[in-house]
C-alpha cells in the first residue's frame, strides 16, 4: 500500500474518527458508576472478609460486564438513539463508531468480564453476571423496551442486580439481604425514569418507545409515580430493620423517603398546565432527588457495614 492510498482510504474518516474516549463512552460510564457503587456496597455489606485485590477485581469485572451490556444496548438501539435528543450525541448516532464495532466490543467484554469474575471470585457470581447481561440486552433491550409500557419496571431489574452479584462474589451464597438491596433499586427505577419521561416529553414519543407517558397518558404516569414511591418507601424503611440496616440507615431512610413521598404527591396533584407554567420544576427536582435518594440509601448501608467491626453498625 502506498502513502497516497493510505491517505485516500483514511481521509474521509478523519473528521469523525473515534478516539479512545468514544469507545469508553459506549460502556455508559455514568451507568457504570452506579453499578460500581452498588456492587461495592453489596460486596462490603456481606458478612465475609474479602481480600482487597480480589474485591477490586470483582468490582472491576462487574463494572466491565455492566459496560459491555451498555455497548450492546447502544448497538441494538442505534436507530432510537439517532432520533432522541438525549442520545443523539452517543458514539454510534454521531457517526464516530460503527454499529459492528460496538457489537464486537460488547460481546468481547461480556465474555471477558464473566470469565474473569468467575476466576477471581466464584462461578456463581460469574453466572449471575452472565444472566444480568443477558437480562439487560435480550430481555430488556431487544424484547421489552419496544413492546410494553412496563419496560422500565422489568428492565429495572437488570440495573438492580449488581449489589446481589457483589454479595455473591464475597460469600458464594445467597440470603435475604442482597435481595433487599435488589428490591430497593428495582422499585426506585420506575419513578426515577417516569419523572424523566415527564419532562423529556417528546423524546420517547418521537422514538416510538412505548413509555407509560405515551401509552397510558401523562396523568396515569403521575399516579404510577406516586404508587411506586409509596411501595418504595415501605420497602426502604423496612430494610432499616434487616441485617443490613441500623440506626444510621433508618435515619437517612426516614428523611429521604419523607422528601421523596412529598415530591411524588406533588407530581400526582399537578396538571400539565401547572408543569408547563414552571417548566416542570417539581418533576425536575424529583428526578434530581431520586439520584441522591439511591446514592444515600446505599451509602448508609455501606456506613452500617463499615461500623460493624467497631461494634457500632446494625442493631446489635
Amino acid at each position, binding site marked *: 500500500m502506498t502513502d497516497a492510498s493510505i491517505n485516500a482510504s*483514511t481521509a474521509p474518516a478523519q473528521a469523525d*474518527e473515534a*478516539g*479512545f*474516549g468514544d469507545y469508553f463512552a459506549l460502556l455508559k460510564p455514568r451507568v457504570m458508576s452506579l453499578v460500581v457503587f452498588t456492587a461495592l456496597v453489596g460486596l462490603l455489606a456481606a458478612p465475609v472478609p474479602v*481480600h482487597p*485485590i480480589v474485591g477490586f*477485581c470483582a468490582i472491576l469485572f462487574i463494572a466491565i460486564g455492566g459496560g459491555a451490556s451498555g455497548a450492546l444496548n447502544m448497538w441494538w438501539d442505534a436507530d432510537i438513539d439517532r432520533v432522541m435528543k438525549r442520545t443523539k450525541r452517543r458514539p454510534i448516532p454521531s457517526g464516530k463508531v460503527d454499529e459492528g464495532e460496538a457489537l464486537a466490543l460488547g460481546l468481547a467484554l461480556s465474555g471477558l468480564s464473566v470469565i474473569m469474575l468467575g476466576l*477471581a471470585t466464584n462461578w456463581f457470581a460469574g453466572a449471575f453476571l452472565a444472566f444480568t447481561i443477558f437480562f439487560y440486552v435480550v430481555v430488556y433491550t431487544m424484547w421489552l423496551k419496544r413492546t410494553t409500557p412496563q419496560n422500565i419496571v422489568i428492565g429495572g431489574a437488570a440495573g438492580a442486580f449488581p449489589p446481589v452479584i457483589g454479595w455473591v462474589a464475597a460469600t458464594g451464597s445467597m440470603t435475604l439481604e442482597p435481595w433487599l438491596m435488589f428490591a430497593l433499586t428495582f422499585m426506585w427505577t420506575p419513578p426515577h425514569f417516569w419523572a424523566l419521561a415527564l419532562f423529556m416529553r417528546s423524546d420517547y414519543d418521537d422514538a416510538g418507545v412505548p413509555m407509560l407517558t405515551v401509552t397510558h397518558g401523562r396523568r396515569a404516569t403521575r399516579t404510577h409515580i406516586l404508587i411506586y414511591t409509596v411501595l418504595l418507601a415501605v420497602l426502604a424503611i423496612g430494610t432499616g430493620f434487616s441485617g443490613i440496616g441500623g440506626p444510621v440507615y433508618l435515619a437517612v431512610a426516614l428523611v429521604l423517603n419523607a422528601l421523596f413521598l412529598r415530591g411524588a404527591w406533588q407530581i400526582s396533584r399537578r396538571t400539565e398546565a401547572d408543569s408547563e407554567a414552571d417548566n416542570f420544576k417539581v418533576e425536575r427536582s424529583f428526578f434530581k432527588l431520586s439520584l441522591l435518594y439511591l446514592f444515600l440509601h446505599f451509602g448508609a448501608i455501606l456506613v452500617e457495614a463499615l461500623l460493624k467491626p467497631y461494634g457500632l453498625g446494625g442493631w446489635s
Partner: protein
Amino acid sequence: MSLRKSHELHQRRFSRNLGVGLTLAAFIVIIFGLTVVKVSGTDFGMATQEVQN
C-alpha cells in the same frame, strides 16, 4: 518511505493506541496481582497437599 518516519495516521491515532496500550498494561498488572493473591491464599492449599502426599 522510511519505517522510522511517523505517518500522519500514527499521530491521529496516538491517543487511541495509547489508551489501548495502557489498558492492556493495567490488565496485566491486575491479573498478576490476582494470581499472587490466589496462589498465596488457601485456594490452592488442597492441591499442594495432595501433591505432597
